[in-house]
């Protein structure tokens, strides 16, 4: 059975290889091939899942040793996989949502000339992401980590003819490099401290920590903080959050799969997987919770101000991952809920993004919500699925988000002490803001007057000068050159709506399914461990408080966007609004501190290089040259002076030899 693990990765990897190497002759079938291989992987995942379920809770770990990668004395790196409950959860999420999004992309990318390549990249992403979650050591995990980074880069910049997309891809890559550096340093620290980076010996089990238990707290804090840095980069957490908004330049299925459901949650996986290290590094854990709390508010605030539907959702993603990171930072109280929220979020956020893509598909690729309005009549399926996703994310009772988010808020309070109150307060506040901004998105898109009428849209992302049909995709799927004409909203084709419907089911039922009877807790507990903590407030109080803030958030949004008409041109707004529109000045901060700082640093280094280093080098060269010019004059061509020099030489030689004996 464990031999199937490699096949999980092999199927999409084969797809990537065939599609990328195969060339144009595969254009006609490439998308089906890619989808088929993704589904194959999903089916294998289901088989393995059934196998795991058939075992005892403590024995649900399969390992497969493929080959020895770097067998050097004292440095053993293996290509080996470990499938436990945590990995299994990710495998199903990745391949399940992945397959649906493959299916969706068939319709969405129909008019794109490079659709085959797109599917190749998607398959590559699946393979890398599966490698990341299946690796049984940090070095192999790092390979997957870099692989998803590459796939993300390729897919954000998929429409590379758009400078904004190319820039966004580059930005994502660069910011991720900072995080990757953290991961590589963490791995090096592990190796120097423990002599291994394999999960088994290093981490042990949640009851019996492995080698990690033997290190000093300072070392563990160092490793944990470096891992956190890696997580921040990949999961767009403050301070490495700036790339995610721009990453929305990629095709919408990419945003749904990579930048909402799976890849951006890799940081959460990393922290939960490294629980044994974090549990022993309380300082680092505190930092993790702070990062999570700050990001969940940061993302939520940014999400409130964005008029671009995808960027509003991106802010929301950042914020929801903030919840997960917060939960993961809480230790055994929160690990299970971090992963549970991760899975439910995977469903409803992917569904929301697909819904957004569907809206854009019907609206000439317009992304500005101020130019939407009243679309519920024209796109009923999109409206309903999007609406269910909306209810799930704000935590409407009974839907997925309600269960998972509520648990995180409870866990935050259960942390205890002042920290617990602050973190719990932040999480509650975040829930209110979530309700607000999601209601805003909902109202601006599907309700209110039809602001797009008599209002030719012009996508900021696809200038009309661009021959839109030639590039297809978001630019004009199905609408050709009508980029500047008044849009004719319509429902999307079946290949797009079916995945949305499936995901909507997940958004509605997954949370309840997981929570009732604590199924998910029992499933994951053998890997991560669990403790209930010591909550100062009862679970019921938390739930009620969550409901109250939810209602407040929705009410405020309704008051602002439901009862009053939405202006087509955004009003100037308060200082906070304007800052939030600029992503709370993150790019300005990066520009002033990092870019300017870096420029000054390089300039001063160049100055030092030119004056000091070159001065020394040139000076040395000049003096050696001068010496050479003087010394060659000794070579005057007269045999007699040569003989004198030899005579002098032998005299010195003899004198020196005798002198050596004398002293």
């Amino acid at each position, binding site marked *: 059975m464990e031999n199937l693990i490699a096949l999980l990765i092999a199927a999409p990897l084969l797809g990537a290889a065939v599609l990328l190497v195969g060339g144009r002759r595969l254009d006609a079938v490439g998308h089906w091939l890619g989808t088929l291989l993704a589904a194959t992987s999903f089916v294998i995942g289901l088989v393995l899942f059934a196998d795991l379920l058939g075992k005892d809770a403590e024995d649900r770990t399969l390992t497969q040793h493929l080959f020895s990668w770097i067998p050097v004395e004292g440095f053993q790196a293996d290509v080996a996989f470990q499938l436990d409950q945590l990995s299994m959860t990710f495998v199903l999420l990745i391949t399940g949502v992945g397959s649906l999004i493959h299916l969706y992309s068939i319709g969405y990318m129909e008019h794109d000339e490079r659709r085959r390549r797109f599917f190749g990249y998607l398959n590559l992403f699946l393979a890398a992401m599966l490698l990341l979650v299946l690796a049984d050591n940090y070095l192999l995990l790092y390979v997957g980590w870099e692989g998803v980074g590459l796939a993300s880069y390729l897919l954000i910049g998929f429409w590379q003819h758009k400078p904004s997309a190319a820039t966004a891809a580059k930005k994502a890559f660069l910011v991720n490099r900072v995080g990757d550096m953290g991961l590589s340093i963490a791995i090096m620290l592990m190796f120097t401290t423990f002599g291994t980076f394999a999960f088994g010996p290093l981490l042990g089990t949640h009851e019996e920590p492995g080698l990690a238990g033997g290190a000093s707290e300072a070392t563990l804090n160092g490793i944990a903080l470096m891992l956190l840095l890696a997580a921040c980069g990949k999961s767009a957490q403050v301070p490495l959050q700036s790339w995610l908004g721009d990453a929305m330049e990629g095709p919408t299925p990419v945003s749904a799969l990579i930048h909402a459901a799976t890849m951006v949650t890799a940081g959460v996986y990393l922290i939960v997987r490294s629980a044994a290290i974090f549990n022993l590094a309380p300082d680092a854990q505190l930092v993790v919770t702070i990062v999570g709390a700050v990001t969940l508010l940061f993302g939520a605030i940014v999400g409130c101000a964005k008029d671009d539907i995808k960027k509003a959702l991106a802010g929301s993603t950042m914020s929801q991952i903030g919840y997960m990171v917060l939960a993961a930072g809480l230790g055994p109280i929160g690990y299970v809920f971090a992963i549970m929220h991760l899975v439910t979020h995977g469903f409803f956020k992917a569904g929301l993004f697909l819904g957004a893509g569907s809206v854009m598909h019907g609206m000439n690729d317009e992304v500005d919500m101020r130019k939407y309005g009243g679309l519920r009549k024209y796109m009923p399926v999109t409206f309903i699925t999007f609406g269910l996703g909306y209810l799930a994310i704000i935590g409407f009772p009974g839907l997925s988000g309600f269960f998972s988010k509520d648990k995180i808020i409870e866990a935050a309070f259960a942390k205890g002490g002042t920290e617990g109150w602050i973190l719990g307060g932040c999480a509650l506040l975040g829930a209110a803001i979530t309700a607000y901004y999601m209601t805003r998105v909902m109202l601006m898109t599907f309700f209110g007057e039809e602001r797009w009428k008599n209002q030719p849209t012009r996508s900021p992302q696809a200038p009309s000068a661009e021959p839109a049909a030639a590039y297809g995709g978001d630019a004009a799927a199905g609408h050709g050159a009508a980029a500047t004409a008044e849009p004719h909203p319509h429902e999307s084709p079946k290949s797009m709506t079916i995945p949305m419907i499936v995901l909507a089911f997940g958004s509605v039922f997954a949370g309840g399914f997981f929570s009732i009877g604590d199924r998910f807790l029992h499933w994951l507990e053998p890997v991560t461990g669990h403790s209930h903590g010591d909550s100062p407030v009862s679970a019921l109080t938390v739930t009620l408080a969550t409901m109250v803030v939810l209602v407040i958030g929705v009410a405020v949004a309704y008051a602002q966007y439901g009862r009053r008409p939405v202006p087509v041109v955004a009003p100037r707004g308060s200082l906070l609004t304007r800052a939030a529109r600029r992503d709370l000045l993150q790019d300005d901060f990066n520009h002033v501190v990092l870019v300017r700082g870096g420029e000054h640093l390089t300039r001063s280094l160049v100055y030092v290089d030119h004056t000091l280093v070159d001065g020394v080098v040139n000076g040395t*060269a000049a003096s*050696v*040259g001068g*010496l*050479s*010019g003087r*010394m*060659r004059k*000794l*070579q005057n*061509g007269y*045999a007699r*002076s*040569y*003989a004198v*020099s*030899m005579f*002098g*030489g*032998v005299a*010195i*030689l*003899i004198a*020196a*030899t*005798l002198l*050596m*004996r004398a002293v």
Partner: protein
Amino acid sequence: MSTAVVHSLWTTAADPISKIGAPKIEYAQLAPTLIVVGAAVVGILVEAFVPRRSRYYAQLFLSVVALVAAFAAVVALAADGYGTTKAHIAAMGAIAVDGPALFLQGTILLSALVGLFTFAERRLDPEAHGSRVDSFAAQAASVPGSDSEKAAVKAGFTTTEVFPLLLFAVAGMLVFPAANDLLTLFIALEVFSLPLYLLCALARRKRLLSQEAAVKYFLLGSFASAFTLFGIALLYGYAGSVSYATIAQVVDGTVTNVSPALADTMGNDVLLLIGAAMIVMGLLFKVGAVPFHMWTPDVYQGAPTPVTGFMAAATKVAAFGALLRILYVVLPGLRWDWRPVMWGVAVVTMLGGAIVAITQTDIKRLLAYSSIAHAGFILAGVIATTPDGVSSVLFYLAAYSFVTIGAFAVVTLVRDAGGEATHLSKWAGLGRRSPLVAAVFAVFLLAFAGIPLTSGFAGKFAVFKAAAEGGAAPLVVVGVISSAIAAFFYIRVIVLMFFSEPRPEGPTVAVPSPLTMTTIGVGVAVTLVLGVAPQYFLDLASQAGVFVR
């Protein structure tokens, strides 16, 4: 003096003359040398009896056969274990047959063989009155510019005597590193020096420069030989013997007396130190170490380029071999005296060669100074006084010989109306006109500079490693600094060849016969093989690194 010794002296003196037996000579073990000497003698007979038009082919054939046969003999001896387990001293204590000797003899024979091909090259110079000519004077005895010279050129004469001269030189060089007593050492020194003096004078073009070089070489060489001979006399006075082993024993104090006639001077350390310094000076002169290097640029420049290449490679191998044996076999007990002095010599040699080379404008002089700097690098390995030191020097010498011969062979190709165009300015833009030749030369220059993946790097690394492990780390620092300085002028030539505009009246690259092509090809191949996969040869050198005592 104990009574027993007195008694033995008495009885020895009273022995009848008839008891002196015939010396025991192990001819088979001396075969490499004997073959070459024999071929040289036959070569003289060829000059006397074979018609002029056939001499070239006869001599070339004879020389090639002799060198190949001698090399085969060396390989056979080595395969028979004479380099390791069966190493011993042959010919009544005169010649050592051991690892270093065989390794160096093999190196000398191979470099002589590829050097011989450049001697025999007859396609580079334009035909003189219908006959193909080589790099050597039509008639050595004719005064440059005289009528007799013109007549000799017109008659199509060539100096085929260069082949036996070469063989004689090679024979001397074979004995030099194997010599196990001081007299044999001196004889070998003269046997290989005299033919070289002659060969230096035989250039076809620029004959005055060539003759001047020969005279200088001869004068200074004789001067150095005189010092060596004086040193030998002093050492004999010190030890009462010219045998390496006996001198070493006297130095160590294990033998206190050998001959009553020398009772006054025996064991006088002043004699030992002065004598040793003088012998070492003679060897340093041959390897071209500062301050005994001044002949090198003039002679390298003036001598016919094939001779320069052969001399630069083979002389250095032979002389370093002899130096190693003197220092490791005769004077190991004295190393606390000679090591600091040799440190000084190595430092000034490395730095002096590298620094003065920077301002050279003639390619042959440049290579001459480069060879001085390399002598310094090799000295660093000699000073290590460890088995690794010996083997690293052996490897370095083998690597260096092929690079040197190859580089000088390329120099013979770049020509203008006046013969070889050795001025550096004429090499500008050579890479555009003759990319292949320039690329090959660039490989040699990179090897000289010690760039990885060339034999120069492997050799330099081995030598510096041995020196550092032998406690000479500061020397390695100086060596690396010198290498950096030296890299400048090597790379400058590459820049000149590839990144400068060709001069309109620049030289042309002559198309050589397969002979020179072989030389250059072997040079490149050895340079790359020793650079990419040096381990086998390093192991070989390390097996051969033990002197017989």
